Structure formats: C-alpha cells, structure tokens
C-alpha cells in the first residue's frame, strides 16, 4: 500500500465516523449506508493493515521454538496459504479433527512455535488496547483466498459429522430468551432494528454473509475473525461463552461454510 492510498483511507475513515453520528435519524437501513461506504473505499479496506500484520507474523520466527509458521499446513500442504481458507473447515489427519482456520492456526502455533495453548486462547480476539496475533494471522490467510471459489468438503465422515452437528447447533434453542441462531437467521428479509439479517437457509444469503467474514468493523475500528463473529452472536443470543476454537464453534462454522459453497470468497470484508 502506498502513502497516498493510506492517507486517503484514513481520510475516508474520518469521514465515515462523522457521517455515522449524523446518520442516526436517517431512515436508510444500515446495509444501505454500509454499501455507500464500501463504494467510497472500494480501493482499500482498513483490514489490509491487519493482513500486513498477519503476514509479518506468519513469516517471522517466534515462540520458544523460534520458528515461523511457513511450514504450517492449512490443508493444501505445508506452507501453502493461497486458496487454503476457501476449503476450510476440513479434516486433518495429524490432529484427527475437523478444524477451522483459527483452530488450525492454534495447532500450528503450539506445535511449530511451541507457544502454550493457554497463552493464545486467553485473549484470542483483538481489543482497542491490544491486537491479537492469531486474529491477524487469520486475516492474512483469508486475504489469500480472495476471489477463490468456496469448496468445503463433507466427503470425510468426520467432515459430514461436523456439518450435521453444526446444523443442530444452528437450530438449538436455549437460554433465558429461547434463542437459536435460526431465530434470527432462518427467515428472509427481516432485520433487528435497522440491521438486515442473512437467512442461512437461502443459498445467496449464506454465500454473501459467510464470504464477507472476517471483516473490518467500522463501529469498532477492528478487524474481526470468524470465531469472533460466532462469539458475539452467542453473546447476543444470551448464551454462555463458546470456548475459542472449540468443536462446537468448528461444527457450526462447517455448517455455515458448506451452506456458502460455490461463492467466490470476498473477504476480508467491511461491516458497520
């Protein structure tokens, strides 16, 4: 990214921030506003900063073993990043598990670099105060699948099982509000306040929603990973917290990813 592009991106961000306040009593839906914002910055998404940070982390030796992640196998062979995200989650022979991107990165960081798992999972999401390495790594990896068709497999019995379990989690109603994912995401053309909601039972909706995450959240000024997306859905669902990179989150991701198969992956995206 060159300096003039960087300056323009910062200018656009400042404009968007001031516009957001004025827009409070505007009747346009959030998605319309975001669409306009997307056009404004079509040649640059602030998520690119996080992609660059992730790329550096990928290549730089780190951890007790002082190793880079360049031998990490994301499913396309050791060190292959290009197109890897478009086929995740998938079954990995070495761990005998179906893994999404973040749980796979966790495996690589612990095995190749020797970083204790608890050090990574204690704060797996970025905050205003501190970026998250695993999250930046994820942003880098997904960026290398931009424009690649999503082909997530359910051929392996464990992949099929993860899909089936994910579907059940999607429809699992519980908690003080009786909410499941499906309460808000199984009907077309509905919204919460002004926020449009994708219907995951409809292919086109599932594709555009899934393929635009991870994403830079304008309201938070942070690039958010897919594990974060699920985490915050469960918060609003009034559920307890899903453990980071747990089997439940991977299975749900599997269900959503397969629902989005055939889409051209378009992330990292840009959201309200």
């Amino acid at each position, binding site marked *: 990214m060159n300096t003039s592009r960087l300056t323009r991106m910062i200018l656009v961000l400042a404009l968007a921030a001031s516009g957001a306040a004025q827009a409070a*009593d505007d*009747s346009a839906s959030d998605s319309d506003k975001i669409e306009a914002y997307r056009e404004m910055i079509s040649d640059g998404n602030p998520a690119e900063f996080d992609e660059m940070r992730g790329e550096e982390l990928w290549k730089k030796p780190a951890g007790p073993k002082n190793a880079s992640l360049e031998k990490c196998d994301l499913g396309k062979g050791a060190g292959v990043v290009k197109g890897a995200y478009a086929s995740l989650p998938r079954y990995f022979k070495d761990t005998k598990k179906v893994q999404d991107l973040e749980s796979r990165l966790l495996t690589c960081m612990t095995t190749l670099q020797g970083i204790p798992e608890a050090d990574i999972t204690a704060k797996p999401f970025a905050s205003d105060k501190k970026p998250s390495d695993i999250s930046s790594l994820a942003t880098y990896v997904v960026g290398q699948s931009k424009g690649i068709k999503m082909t997530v497999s359910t051929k392996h019995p464990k992949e099929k*099982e993860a899909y*089936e*379990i994910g579907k*059940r*989690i999607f*429809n*699992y*109603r*519980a*908690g*003080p*509000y*009786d*909410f*499941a994912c*499906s*309460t*808000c995401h199984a*009907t077309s*053309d*509905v*919204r*919460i*306040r*002004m*926020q449009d*909601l994708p219907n995951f039972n409809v292919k086109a909706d599932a594709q555009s929603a899934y393929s635009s995450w991870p994403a830079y959240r304008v309201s938070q000024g942070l690039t958010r990973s897919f594990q974060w997306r699920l985490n915050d859905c*469960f*918060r*609003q669902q*009034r*559920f*307890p*917290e*899903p*453990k980071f990179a*747990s*089997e*439940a*989150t991977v*299975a749900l991701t599997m269900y959503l990813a397969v629902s989005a198969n055939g889409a051209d992956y378009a992330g990292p995206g840009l959201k309200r």
Partner: protein
Amino acid sequence: MNAKQLFGIAVSVCLASVTFSAQAGSKDDKKLDAKTTEIIKRDFRDKGIAKADRVNQDELQAACSKYLDDVPDKLKGKLEAAQAKEIKWPADGKYMGDWKAGEKLAQSGRGMTWSDKPEDTPGGNCYNCHRLSAKEIAYGTIGPSLLNYGKKRGTKEEVQRSVYGHIYNAKAYNACANMPRFGHMGILTEAQIKDLVALLLDPESPVNPKDASAAAK
C-alpha cells in the same frame, strides 16, 4: 459366474445397503443428537452473568429445536397448555401500567448478555423486532408491526389480559414463537409487563396515534 448372476448380486447388495442406510439413518440421527448435546454442554462456559447451565434446555426448547419450530399439533397443544399453567397473573387484577415507562422499556435492547452487569435491568427489547410507536423508525421486523395495536382492539379487560399473557409467556399461545417468555423467564417484572400492556393499549400511547396519516400506516 455369468452376467445375470452378477446383476442379481449387485441388485441384492444395493437393496441391502438401502435397507441398512434407512435403518442407520434414524440411529445415526439419534447418535448425532446425543453427540451435539454432549458437545454443547462441554464447549460453553460461564462468562459474567451468563452461566454455562444456560445451554440446558427445558422441555419446550428441546421440542422446538428437535422439530425446527414446527412441532406436531398434539405436542404443540400440550406444550402450550403447560406454559399457560405457569403464567402468574397480577394479584390485583390490574393489567395496565404507565405507557411512558413502557415506551422506555421497549426502547432498551439491553439485558442478560454476558456483557451486562448483574445490576443492569433488562429492557423489553421490543423495538428490536417490532414496530410500535409511529415516531420510532428504527424498528426490527422479525415480529409483526404493533402500530395501532390498541386502536384495533380497544381496552376491554379480556384484551388487556391477553396482552399481559402474551408478554409474560408468548409460548403459551404459540409453542415455538420467536418471542422470549419475559415473565416466565424472569426477564421483566409484573409492573414492567403492565407498563408494556399500557404501551400497546392505552389510547394516549404513541402506538395508537390520533392523527389519521400515522394511523393509516
């Protein structure tokens, strides 16, 4: 072995596998259901006020999940009756409170998440899913519009009682409704539910606007 014999074997193998997979289907489903429950119970943890045991389903939640919110009629009736029995009606026999307090409550989408504090009072979350006051344009559409709700129905006691019951426990009327059970689950107090009944029914409430143009919407 001739071609005919081979064909015969192939057909019987196919038939056998069809029968097998049909039986295995339901067995597999049960196994998957059990595994899902096991995973959910293991993979969620306490955070703030949201304790891990929130994933444990009651009878109604389990049935609605199993049947994807489309439970068979007989079971639906049974579930609704069980929910209706649990409604605590106001002891003073009054159902309407203050619509102004109700409007404030309807606006608030807070409450019960792990980022809410124990001392935070949950809101009604009404505008998240419903249109109510004609003046509020940032309303959700998961639930039906309630604009002019009282105008259409009046304030007869049976209407008030029905609205109170719906807010207290929507599932007593429709087992797998999307709407939370605000009284049943202890989200809102009796007084708060009365305020919401007033918001919907009071002729002075902005839900029932007097000017014809808003009313026509």
